[in-house]
């Protein structure tokens, strides 16, 4: 085809013990947005690292405009017109935008000229950005713009974007999509990596789906259902979580005007957070990362003691109690970070079971751990939540992210909590495992537990929550029933437009 920009043929890359890419071939045309879709560990990052010259393929070849393309380094890739925006930004907080941009360029122009060009590009593509602002003062969305502008200044012909929307609010996502569509009309090809299916369906012209290193299909995502795409990604059909009918009971957990100062310079203070969750109810808490999610979880789990009277469980004040006493009272939690926070990486699943279940499951008597009981508890979690592991004696770090997440969530659910608080319960988890975890959350709610799910995955929150609230700079919006929300309203809540509620509730 004449308009093929990048042609990939038979790319193979093996790492010890795993074939990351196995004979992958597909073409990217000029002026198309091409999605690269796959679960974690499907080989997406290895593939783009090969295109960007970070990793050399074992076999296979690439051609750009019909000419052989085998970049030995990112700068060689950039000379051939390939640019990449990474998921994790590489920016210096203490430098301003222009300085950061020039640091990432192979041949930066003079500072004055650069600032002018940054202004031009940011205006041309609808990405407002002041070249003289310090990067430390920018939001995640603005930081991403710095990275994108850095790429655009080099007039790329292929722009690779690795999970660009994971840090953005819905409004920022819209701005990004406009930019990408504009680039597309100018003939720039975009390779868009994501596992968010709805995004891909609205944005991308074609999608290449990877599963366990192999290309499964190239399709036109707009013509497929999200469910079909997910099944191609996972390789089998899986049950969509079904909510059983639930009866709303008494309020089990109530937070009243909880304020906590930030423990260090990298944290967010909690500001006057209030909410209540009733038995049989799932409250979804959304928000862009870094707006107080970790701090809220720590205040609920008891890792940080809250001011008296701010946290009430079943009507009793537990604000001054630590994690052990809160667990005894029936409030369990699951932090975002699996390795190192929810679980100790080098310890076995048995020991990681004892970590939170020691008292509720009677695994300890007179201070001595009953390892037999502990093993049986770990085995129960493994069975009930289909954790794929050779056995309970395996170290937590040897499990895949999804399996360990099933274990740590299952560990709390099997302890029959009255209130369960989870932060990012399906983050980085494959689709089938995520569906299983969501189903377990819904089942637990149906049995009369009150559940708080903190997540950055809005689709997830819409799927499982009864009510939704958003965290913004440590403030929590009022919770509203999910049924009366749409993406625009959610975006406003996440952006901190709290007065919207006032306007809404008055009529």
């Amino acid at each position, binding site marked *: 085809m004449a308009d093929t920009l990048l042609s990939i043929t038979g790319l193979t890359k093996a790492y010890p013990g795993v074939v990351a890419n196995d004979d992958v071939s597909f073409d990217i045309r000029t002026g198309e947005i091409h999605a690269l879709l796959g679960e974690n560990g499907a080989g997406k990052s290895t593939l783009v690292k090969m295109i960007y010259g970070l990793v050399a393929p074992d076999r296979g070849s690439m051609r750009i405009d019909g000419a052989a393309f085998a970049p030995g380094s990112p700068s060689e890739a950039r000379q051939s017109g390939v640019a990449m925006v990474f998921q994790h930004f590489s920016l210096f907080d203490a430098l301003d935008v222009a300085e950061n941009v020039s640091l990432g360029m192979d041949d930066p122009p003079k500072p004055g000229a650069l600032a002018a060009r940054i202004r031009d590009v940011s205006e041309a593509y609808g990405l407002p950005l002041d070249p003289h602002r310090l990067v430390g003062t920018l939001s995640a969305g603005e930081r991403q713009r710095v990275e994108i502008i850095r790429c655009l200044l080099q007039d790329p012909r292929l722009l690779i974007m690795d999970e660009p929307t994971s840090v953005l609010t819905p409004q920022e996502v819209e701005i990004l999509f406009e930019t990408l569509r504009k680039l597309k009309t100018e003939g720039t090809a975009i390779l868009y990596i994501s596992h968010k299916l709805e995004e891909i369906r609205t944005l991308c012209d074609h999608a290449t789906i990877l599963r366990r290193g192999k290309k499964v299909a190239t399709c036109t995502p707009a013509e497929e259902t999200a469910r079909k795409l997910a099944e191609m990604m996972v390789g089998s059909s899986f049950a969509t979580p079904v909510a059983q009918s639930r009866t709303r009971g008494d309020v089990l957990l109530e937070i009243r005007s909880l304020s906590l100062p930030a423990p260090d310079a990298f944290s967010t203070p909690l500001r006057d957070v209030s909410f209540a969750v009733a038995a049989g109810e799932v409250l979804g808490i959304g928000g862009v990362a870094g707006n107080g999610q970790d701090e809220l979880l720590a205040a609920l789990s008891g890792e940080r003691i809250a001011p008296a009277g701010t946290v009430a469980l079943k009507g009793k004040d537990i604000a001054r109690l630590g994690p052990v006493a809160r667990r005894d009272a029936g409030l369990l939690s699951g932090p975002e970070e699996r390795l190192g926070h929810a679980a100790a*990486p080098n*310890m076995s699943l048995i020991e990681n079971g004892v970590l*939170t279940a020691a008292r509720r499951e009677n695994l300890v008597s007179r201070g001595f751990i009953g390892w037999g009981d502990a093993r049986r508890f770990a085995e129960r979690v493994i069975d009930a939540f289909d954790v794929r592991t050779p056995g309970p004696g395996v170290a937590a770090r040897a499990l895949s992210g999804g399996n360990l997440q099933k274990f740590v969530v299952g560990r709390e659910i099997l302890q029959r909590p009255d209130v369960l608080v989870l932060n990012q319960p399906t983050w980085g988890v494959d689709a089938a495992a995520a569906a299983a975890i969501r189903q377990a959350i819904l089942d637990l709610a149906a049995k009369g537990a009150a559940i708080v799910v903190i997540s950055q995955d809005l689709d997830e929150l819409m799927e499982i929550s009864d009510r939704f609230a958003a965290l913004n700079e440590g403030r929590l919006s009022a919770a509203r029933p999910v049924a009366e929300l749409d993406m625009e309203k959610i975006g406003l809540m996440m952006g901190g437009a709290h007065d919207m509620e006032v306007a809404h509730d008055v009529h």
Partner: protein
Amino acid sequence: MIRLEKRPEPSRFWTAVTPLIAVALTMVVGGMLFAWQGADPVEAIRTIFWDPIFNPQFAAFTRPQLLVKAGPLILIAIGLSIGFRAGIWNIGAEGQYIMGAICGAGAGLAFYPSESVLIFPLMIVAGALGGWAWAMIPAVLKTRFGTNEILVSLMLVYVAENILASVSSGLLRNPEGMGFPGSRNFKQWDATHNAELISGTGMHWGVVFAFIAVIAAYVLMARHIQGFHIRLTGEAPRAARFAGVNPTRIVILCLGISGALAGLAGLFEVTGPAGQISIDFNSGYGFTAIIVAFLGRLHPVGILLAGLLMALTYIGGELAQLMLGVPGASIQLFQGMLLFFLLATDVFTNYRLRFAAREVS
């Protein structure tokens, strides 16, 4: 190019085998060192590792020394290992050992010349408290002000050494000692003498306490929730806090245990093998115990074996000094090498070597 690749799980095989490899490498490189010093390497190694136990000429004298030297090393190392498992690095056991000896000896000497049976138990308690109190200084500074326990505990060793120098020529000096520095000799005072319990074995109360400590530490770390919390704190501090472990408590507990055990070791040493408080009664056991703790993989049984091995190098080293004329410093070098090789080979527990083509990264 050779690359190190992280293993999915720590290798059980390498955990067990690295101390043996480290000992073997130390023998090889140590032999080369002795050869360079002009001694026959094979003979030197034999003198250090074989003769103290099996040579008919020396064994009757050197064999009991094995327990005499291993006792304090094991006792201190057990305490240190508990802290090390929690990521609390008490490097100042030597100071706690000295302060335990001073406090224990002082408590006894206050009652001189009583022959009450209560004196020795009192001294044991005072010794443990002395070491404990000295370890509480870095513990409190760490928990209150966030200071680094490595630096504070290490610096306090030098303070303790100066206190030792001061009391041995001042407060605790033997009034009948004709002005020589050093306290009364406990060997000549039956109520306080930590004598050999079974003749010809070197077994004294310190060795008994060391064995008890090994068993107690094993039970604590393997079976008790407190030991689990200590290990959890070392493995993943955030997970420990999530589990409800109070980090301040763990710091106080771990430094307290290691300080008390070091203090006990000091008391048993000064009332037994050393016999009196003197400027240099301490033989650096507090520092060598760090090597013992790591050589024993921070595991109680491992520490028992490592303590015996390290005691052997002490005795064998003295023997080699005597018989072959190798300098005393080369024995310390030998012990240092052991730790060095252990840490070096330790990498293989968590990593494996890969011989692979170079890759741009």
